[in-house]
């Protein structure tokens, strides 16, 4: 009896923290994550910002003494016309990709969210691209873009005659299109699954009520489906945008071997500057610029969504 009272007291005493919680408990649970995130995410980021103000190249890499050069790295980047053309290409890349990911993914989810024999099998087939490792997908597509033997051109010539073959990998603008097609293929399953999850949580009664009121399919989509999916789609779109903006694998692998910079996006430029041209300082500055762009985008996007509500 005495014991129970004590336990109850103990529980009551802790209630200001949450159930059964001592002052240090959350710390114990959080410590592993905190250590990893500080060591591998926070510290490198701060370090990156610092070296973006320094001159770090292959020559002084091992010495660890990097001279401070202020804003020179940033000035060099902003004075380079290649930066602006790549920035525009990156925005185009992101917009096209995210548009197709969301629209096709949502459409597939809506079609799949109904009674349909064989639905489970179809869903499995449609999410397969998500399960393929990205670099394998990129390399495989690269093989399929081969001008003479790649199946993309073989199919195109079968359908539209021999003039339809496209020099995917030798002309930069076609290479860019090739990258976009590959990345759209890769990204649709994620958006489809997110939307499907959201759709199953919308109660059928809403649609039945709309049916009684004589709503058309489009009206139901606009007034029921979209608003109810918004809390799920908004974070997914932000994440999707950031991921696409920084998609190294596809662009880097498909364009590797090409001499031209005209199908690069910003993040592959960072990668190339650092690990092919060994201009570490400049590469760090470019990373910081990318981060600022993405931060601005997500802040504006979230604000806009909130003010709409």
């Amino acid at each position, binding site marked *: 009896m005495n*014991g*129970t009272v004590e336990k*109850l007291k103990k529980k009551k005493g802790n209630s*200001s923290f*949450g*159930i*059964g919680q001592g002052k240090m408990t*959350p710390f*114990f649970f*959080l410590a*592993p*994550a905190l250590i*990893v995130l500080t*060591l*591998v*995410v926070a510290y*490198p980021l701060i*370090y*990156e910002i610092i*070296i973006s103000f320094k001159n770090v190249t292959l020559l002084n890499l*091992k010495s660890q003494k990097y001279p401070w050069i202020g804003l020179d790295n940033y000035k060099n980047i902003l004075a380079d016309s290649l930066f602006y053309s790549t920035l525009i290409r990156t925005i185009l890349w992101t917009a096209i990709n995210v548009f197709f990911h969301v629209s096709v993914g949502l459409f597939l989810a809506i079609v799949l969210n109904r*009674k*349909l024999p064989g639905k489970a099998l*179809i869903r*499995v*087939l*449609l*999410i*397969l*691209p998500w*399960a393929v*490792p990205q*670099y*394998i997908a990129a*390399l*495989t597509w690269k*093989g*399929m873009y081969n001008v003479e*033997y790649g199946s993309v051109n073989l199919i195109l010539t*079968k359908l539209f005659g021999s003039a339809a073959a496209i020099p995917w990998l030798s002309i930069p603008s076609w290479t860019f299109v090739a990258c976009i097609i590959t990345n759209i*293929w890769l990204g649709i399953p994620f958006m489809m699954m*997110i939307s499907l*999850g959201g759709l199953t*949580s919308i109660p059928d009664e809403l649609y039945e009520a709309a049916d009684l009121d004589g709503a058309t399919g489009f009206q139901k989509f606009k007034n029921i489906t979209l608003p109810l999916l918004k*809390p*799920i789609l908004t*974070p*997914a779109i932000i994440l999707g945008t950031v991921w696409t903006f*920084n998609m*190294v694998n596809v662009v*880097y*692998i498909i364009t590797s071997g090409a001499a031209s910079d005209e199908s690069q996006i910003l*993040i592959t430029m*960072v*990668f190339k500057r650092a*690990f092919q041209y060994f201009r570490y300082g400049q590469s*760090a500055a470019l990373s910081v610029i*990318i*981060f600022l762009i993405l931060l601005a985008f*997500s802040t504006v996007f979230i604000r806009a969504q909130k003010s709409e509500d």
Partner: protein
Amino acid sequence: MKKSDRFNRGDSLTKIILIYSFLIVACICSIYPILNILTVSLRPANAIYTKSLSIIPPNATFDNFRQAFIQYDMLGWLYHSLIVSSSACIFSVIVSVTAGYAFSRFEFRGKKMGLSLILVTQMFPLAMTLLPLYLMIINLKLTNSYIALAVIYVSTSIPFNIWMMKGFYDTIPKSLEESAYVDGASVFRSFYQIILPLARPAVALTALFSFMGAWSEYIVASVIINEAGKITLPVGLVSMQGQFSTAWGIYSAGALITAVPVMILFISLSKYLVGGLTVGSVKG
């Protein structure tokens, strides 16, 4: 079974045919590139470059699969990748399972801030912190170290996993633990013996995501591991793509060996996927 039991009410026959033909086209687009890997891997060495579009090539052979192990160190790559991915997976599960629990159940200062900061880390994908990490690793003389690689993979997988775990714990009623406390269980014990077993689907997803992430990552591995005898699968497979010619047949065989296990794993766990993802994203 009546038609009305199998399809949505009010779907006309034309609508059903339209839906199916659209879905079939979508499925073909979705699996054709994967079938293409299979096709190329089955081609005999003298017929890699062919203009045939048949899925199973004439004179199909498994020779490329054999050659992958003979001409390249496929077995070694598989082994290295297995070490890196399983250690990344185990660490990631431990870290996200505990952190997610703290964010779901406890009140502490900076909780909201911490949750959004974790989301913000998703904005710096690895390619961006790769450079400072690379410099750090050089300075710590950790190049070619699997531990360094695994720790980096853990850091990329945990933000998403913590959110997912938190979302899942939120759906488990608190009264379960409350009654355990009344019976005298400690916080750790009730977490370990009551909550964790209930959260099994989410834990499975966490493990899957972190294993697959590590297994399928190329960019970081290519920067950190460069000693020929230590490279992991992704680095090995991409290195097959030569400057002038690529051994497409052997590469495709290797790609299948790499991709098929994760694909099977992914598909078999995908029934949890819809539930886990929604719960994780809705309950912010």
